[in-house]
Structures are given as structure tokens and as C-alpha cells.
């Protein structure tokens, strides 16, 4: 290999990235752009008109957004305490805490979704326990509907909220909290006035990730929704697999992608330029 002498004033270090760049270009950028290109078949935007104009499909978009917001909210509600606890406890418990967040995270989404089917079905664990215990007479409809989908999605996406929040709480200077305590603030006050504002970045990051993932979710609504919960991703899959309507699927995809990118862009704007890598 040639000399490593660092007098080279010009640009350097680009070549190692080339193979990865080629792979991403050929098997990622190219196919996606190509597919999105289908949406302007015959040079017009008819399919977009259908995607955004027709009540039916517009409803799907709305549903998806609503579900995503709901899921994000609950993930935040459940995820913040978890992230906070892991970040403020002893190293041993923190490791344990991490393990029990990573374990579900890396368990296949199929396994988790299937487990929820087992838990939520008419003869599933919950209903069986409640009925055998005499609490209810008829089984609760927890599966193949919106309820099941929401529970499932919150479960799958919760770890994605915990990690950024953990990071944000961890980065907080403990001296600030100590100062507040010394000045007489109660735990609750400290939480509201110190922790929450200073970890806003983490909350934001986690919420954005969860929201965007929820927008594009496929597996959970497909399996837990029983055909009754139509999210965009499910619709796209249908259009490709069953209806074979590629241009329409492309238009739907374009709208989904645009929404995703818009959310990210907005998030960038509002996030304070903190120490993100």
C-alpha cells in the first residue's frame, strides 16, 4: 500500500465507503425511486388524486396517523419511567433493566405478535382467566380489532422510546439535581421543572422514532387487526400482492414516505442542537 504520509491536503478516505455506497445505490435508492416513479404513470397525478382524494383512502391515512399518535403517547407514558429508572439506578440494576428492554426488542416481532394473539384471543389467557375467575361472563373482544392492534404496537415500540430517554436522562448533570434538592425542591417539582425540560431532546427523539415506525407498521396490524384495522402499510401490501395495482401502491408509498420525511424534518427543526453523536 502506498505511503501514509499525511501531507495529502486534498480529500481523502472516501474509497473505503464505495462498496457500501454501490450496494445502497443499486439495491436501495434505485429500486425505491423506480417504484415511486410508477406513481406518475402516463405523466399525470391521477393516482395521487385517488390516494388523497377518495374518502376511503383518506380515511386510511387518518386512521394511521391517529393510531401512530396514540401509540406514541402511550409509549411515552410507559417508556419515560423506564428510561428514567435505568438511567438513575446502580450499574447492576441498570444492566438488568437494559437486558429486559433489549430482550423484547430483539425478539422477533412475529413472536411478540403471536404471543399477543395467544393472550388476547377469545379463548386466550386474559379472557380465560377473567371468565374462570367469574369476573366476566362473555369474552372481551381484545383481538382482531383496534384494541389488539394498539396493545400490540405499544408493546413492540416501547423499547424504541426507552433507549433515547435513557440517553437523555443519563446525560443530565447530577449536580443540577443536587442543586435543586439543596434549594428545597420536592421530588415532584424536581421532575417537572428539571428533568422534563432538560430531557426534552430525548423525549423528542424517542417520540419521533416511535411515531415514524408506527406510521409504517405492517406486521402487527396485519396479524392483530383481523382485516379490520387498515393502516397504510397493510393497504400498500394489499395493492401489490392482491390487486397488483403498482401505480396506486407507489402513490400511497410516496405519500407515506413524504409524511415520514416531513416528521423527521420537523423534528430536526425543533430539537435543540444537543450532543447528538
Amino acid at each position: 500500500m502506498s505511503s501514509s504520509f499525511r501531507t495529502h491536503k486534498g480529500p481523502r478516505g472516501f474509497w473505503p465507503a464505495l462498496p457500501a455506497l454501490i450496494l445502497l445505490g443499486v439495491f436501495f435508492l434505485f429500486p425505491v425511486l423506480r417504484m415511486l416513479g410508477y406513481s406518475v404513470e402516463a405523466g399525470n397525478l391521477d393516482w395521487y388524486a385517488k390516494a388523497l382524494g377518495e374518502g376511503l383512502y383518506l380515511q386510511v391515512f387518518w386512521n394511521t396517523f391517529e393510531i401512530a399518535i396514540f401509540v406514541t403517547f402511550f409509549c411515552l407514558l410507559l417508556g419515560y419511567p423506564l428510561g428514567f429508572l435505568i438511567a438513575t439506578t446502580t450499574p447492576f440494576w441498570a444492566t438488568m433493566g437494559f437486558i429486559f428492554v433489549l430482550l423484547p426488542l430483539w425478539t422477533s416481532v412475529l413472536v411478540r405478535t403471536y404471543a399477543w394473539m395467544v393472550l388476547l384471543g377469545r379463548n386466550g389467557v386474559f379472557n380465560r382467566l377473567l371468565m374462570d375467575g367469574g369476573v366476566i361472563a362473555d369474552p372481551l373482544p381484545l383481538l382482531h380489532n383496534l384494541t389488539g392492534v394498539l396493545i400490540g404496537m405499544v408493546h413492540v415500540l416501547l423499547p424504541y422510546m426507552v433507549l433515547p430517554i435513557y440517553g437523555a436522562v443519563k446525560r443530565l448533570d447530577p449536580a443540577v439535581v443536587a442543586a435543586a434538592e439543596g434549594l428545597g425542591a420536592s421530588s415532584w417539582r424536581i421532575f417537572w421543572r428539571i428533568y422534563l425540560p432538560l430531557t426534552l431532546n430525548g423525549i423528542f427523539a424517542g417520540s419521533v422514532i416511535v411515531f415514524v415506525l408506527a406510521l409504517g407498521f405492517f406486521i402487527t396490524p396485519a396479524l392483530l387487526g383481523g382485516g379490520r384495522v387498515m393502516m397504510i402499510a397493510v393497504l400498500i401490501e394489499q395493492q401489490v400482492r392482491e390487486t397488483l395495482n403498482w401505480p396506486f401502491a407507489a402513490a400511497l408509498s410516496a405519500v407515506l414516505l413524504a409524511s415520514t420525511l416531513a416528521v423527521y424534518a420537523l423534528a430536526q427543526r425543533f430539537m435543540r442542537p444537543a450532543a447528538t453523536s
Partner: protein
Amino acid sequence: MTAGRRTLVAACAVIYFFLMLPLLVVFPISLSSAPYMQFPPPGLSWQWYERYLDDPQWIDATVRSLYIGAATAVLALALGVPLAFSLVRGRFIGRGLLDRIAMAPVIVPTIILSVSVYGLFAKLKLVGAWYGLVIAHTVLALPFVVLVMVAGLRDFDRGLEQAAEGLGASRWRTLWRITLPLLRPSLVSAALLAFITSFDEVVVALFLAGANMTLPKKMFDNILMEIDPTIAAVSVMQIILVTVVLVLIGRFGRGLSASAR
């Protein structure tokens, strides 16, 4: 502990229970002696595990997922490690852009990626080919490899490389004898992450696997068609696999909490 802290711990215990519940419930189901999904299981039996082991389709799918996962790990490392070096140590215009492109597969919803690649591969007659799946999975795994390696490289003491060069090592030798061995924990984490990403991957597999199923695809079909407790047995094994991987990363890897930011 203050009262506030106690409430927090209690609340978290409940949340953790929620997180772990699905993982726990599949264990007893997989050992059920009933011929169909029933809770509580009337008795214990290994029948579902036997069903799995006896069914060539399941075994095939598992083996296929294993070697596709391994191949993905290898390819993702081979491409992602140099990419990470470029991103951390390179000086060229467009480095920021390259960073975004590397992360893009995480940002673009998987359904879009799957459908797009399917469209392309259908034309190229690559549907059903295992290497097609490896390529698609590598695209998905690359951002994770990059994240972990970049974190590892950032913490790397370049003084060691300087010392090596001063002692007579060429660039290549420094890389092989000093840099990469010291980066081994990050490499291990990256490889295992890439493997798990591929092994668990469903959506792309649904489109690309065709008749040659990966394990997730078979599971998906199975779940749709019938809730056969064999799935529970497969799930248990998958959970055990993930646990093993986590232990391996804890023991030999590093950099996950650093790259969680």
C-alpha cells in the same frame, strides 16, 4: 428510598411485566399437551417441539434463515466497517450526505423498501433466491453496523496507530494487527446485530422469499392460517436464541449503550 422513588420502582415493575408477559406466555403454551390452542394447558408435552423437528419445512426454513443471517452479517461487516472508517476519519465533501444515505434504510419505512426491492427483483428473476434476500437484509442491517462501528471508532485512541507506524508498521499492518483487533468488541456487536436483524426479518422476506421460505415467513403464514402451538415452540427457541446473542454481546461485544444515543 423516598416514597416517590418507591412508586417509580413499582410502576416500572408493572411496565416490565407488560414487556415480558408475551415472552413468558409462549413457554407454557409450547409445552401444552392439548391438540390445539388452549389455555390453561391441560398438561405438559414435548409434542410441539417434536412437530417442529420432524417437519422438513420448518427445519429447512430455519436452516435457510441461519445461513442467510450469517451471510448478511458477513456482507454487512465487509461493507459497513470500511464505510464507518470513511465516515469517522475521512475528509471529503459530501461526508454528511453519505452519513444520511447510510442511515436511510432505517428511515424509509420497511414496507416501501420491501415493495420496491420486490419490484426490481421480480424483473431480475431474483425472487426466491437466497442471495437476493441476503442483499436486501444487508441494506437493512448496514445502518446498525455503521452506528456501532462509528461509536467504537470515535473512542479509539489513534496514538496507538501512530506508535505502530513509528515502530515500522505500514498502514495495512497497523490496521490488521492493531486497529481491528482492538475494535473486536464493536465488530462482535455489529455482527450479532446484523445477524439478528436478518434472522428476525419478516416484511422483506414476505415478498422476496417466494417458495423458499425463511423462518419468519413460514411463521407468518402459519399464524395467518392457523394458531398452531408449533409456533409457540418455535417462538420459545427464538427467544432462547436472542438471549444467547445478548449474552454473547454482553461478554464479547461493546458499544451498544454508546450507540443508543
